[in-house]
């Protein structure tokens, strides 16, 4: 019963959402779907508490036992609880100036910093991927060089318009064809997975491998 009940609930709500997606002209279905969407948001919001408990357990233990780098764990908890208490007790709204200041001057720049490190990771990954070890890697290298030169003004200035046209062709024809092939396969796979989960055949996500 521990696994049957979630499967029954999943099937009922899953079918309801699918029907609401396809069937038009029934306001009750749209209203019901909106309710279910709201419930999902409420459940997600409550789940935050579970996450906070997990973080506190892990990092609290690290601080308590003075493990290596425990200062970072302490700083994490100060920031997490500090931000939460400030938001709940002082700001009470996302429009609060202090709250906006912290978001715009702390969180946003830190996110941008991590995002910008991607350029170095791309460089390192490209170096490994473009080493010519076989025919496939050689094709990848040539395509990448044409793409890079074709997408910057310098490439056109040095080599002429053909490089830009070739880059555009690679992007729109072989690349798009490959991507769409993968997308078709992935969509069919996604539907089959959803169906297996809805009818309760695949239940590994409920804990255990089903046996």
């Amino acid at each position, binding site marked *: 019963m521990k696994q049957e009940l979630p499967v029954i609930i999943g099937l009922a709500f899953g079918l309801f959402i699918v029907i609401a*997606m*396809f*069937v*038009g*002209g*029934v306001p009750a279905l749209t209203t019901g779907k909106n309710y279910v969407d709201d419930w*999902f948001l409420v*459940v*997600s919001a409550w*789940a*935050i*508490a*579970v*996450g906070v408990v*997990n*973080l506190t*357990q*892990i990092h609290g*233990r690290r601080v308590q036992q003075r493990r290596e*780098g425990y200062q970072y764990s302490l700083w994490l908890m100060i920031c997490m609880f500090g931000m939460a208490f400030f938001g709940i007790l002082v700001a009470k709204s996302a429009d609060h100036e202090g709250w906006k200041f912290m978001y715009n001057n702390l*969180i946003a720049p*830190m*996110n941008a910093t*991590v*995002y910008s*490190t*991607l350029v170095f*990771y*791309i460089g*390192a*990954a*490209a170096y*490994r*991927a473009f080493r010519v070890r076989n025919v496939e890697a050689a094709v990848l290298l040539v395509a990448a060089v044409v793409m890079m030169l074709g997408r910057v003004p310098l490439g056109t200035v040095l080599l002429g318009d053909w490089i830009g046209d070739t880059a555009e062709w690679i992007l729109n024809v072989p690349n798009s064809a490959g*991507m769409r092939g*993968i*997308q*078709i*396969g*992935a969509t*069919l*796979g*996604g*539907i*089959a*997975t959803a*169906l*297996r*989960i809805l*009818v309760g*055949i*695949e239940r*590994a*996500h*409920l*804990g*255990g*491998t*089903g*046996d």
Partner: protein
Amino acid sequence: MTIAQGQIFSFIAELIYCIGVLTMISRARKGIKIPELYQVPGLDALDEAIGRCTEMGRPVHFSPGIAGVDEAQTLAGLSILSYVARQCAKYDTDIIATNRRTVVYPIAEEIVKQAFVQEGKIANFKVENVRFISEDQFAYATGVTGIMYREKPAANLLLGAFWAESLIFAEVGATAGAIQIAGTANTHQIPFFVAACDYCLIGEELYAASAYLTREPILMGSLVVQDWGKMFAAVCIVLGVLLQTASVSVLKDIMGK
């Protein structure tokens, strides 16, 4: 009550597809032979990756992606987590499962715990090894980066829906010297995984993983219909190209309904 405009073809196609999947599952249940699956090197390498961790005495890192439970890729990733956790339990290897979504985290924890229970090794289950990092995408990426550098897992398994953080994970894993198996259906991230990981599950292979790993005929039955669906799509593409070239829009009109 009518089918919404523009959804009729999609509704009928999905209905036929679902009936096909259920029919094949029913045939498998009756014991009728199901065609063999082709080899997926990335999935075959899972045991090798776990074995490497066991030999080196280092943990496995597993990420089910950064999407929520409303994403089929996450559920596919969690199914693989179930298998990986069970193998880890069997060989007394630590598994660190990191999560971005608070909704996914308790599910992942229960999956890992159940895997250790099923192997009769609940005493080896470490609750602190299933971790919620952050709901923020790049904070999660930073957290995983730290874990990779500090705890040096010998295998980095990235199976689920990934976005911009995919290359950060894969490159950090490579730097940490981990064997890397990644899989996603997000086409824009596949090139990064192909470039930076040892094995990559491309698109549908991620969804086929649980059937492939468990070899359960009932699960494998649905994969056959996936291939039929692809063949149907290929026929539609060829037919569509020919008809459109001849200025006949019958197929386009039918699909647009």
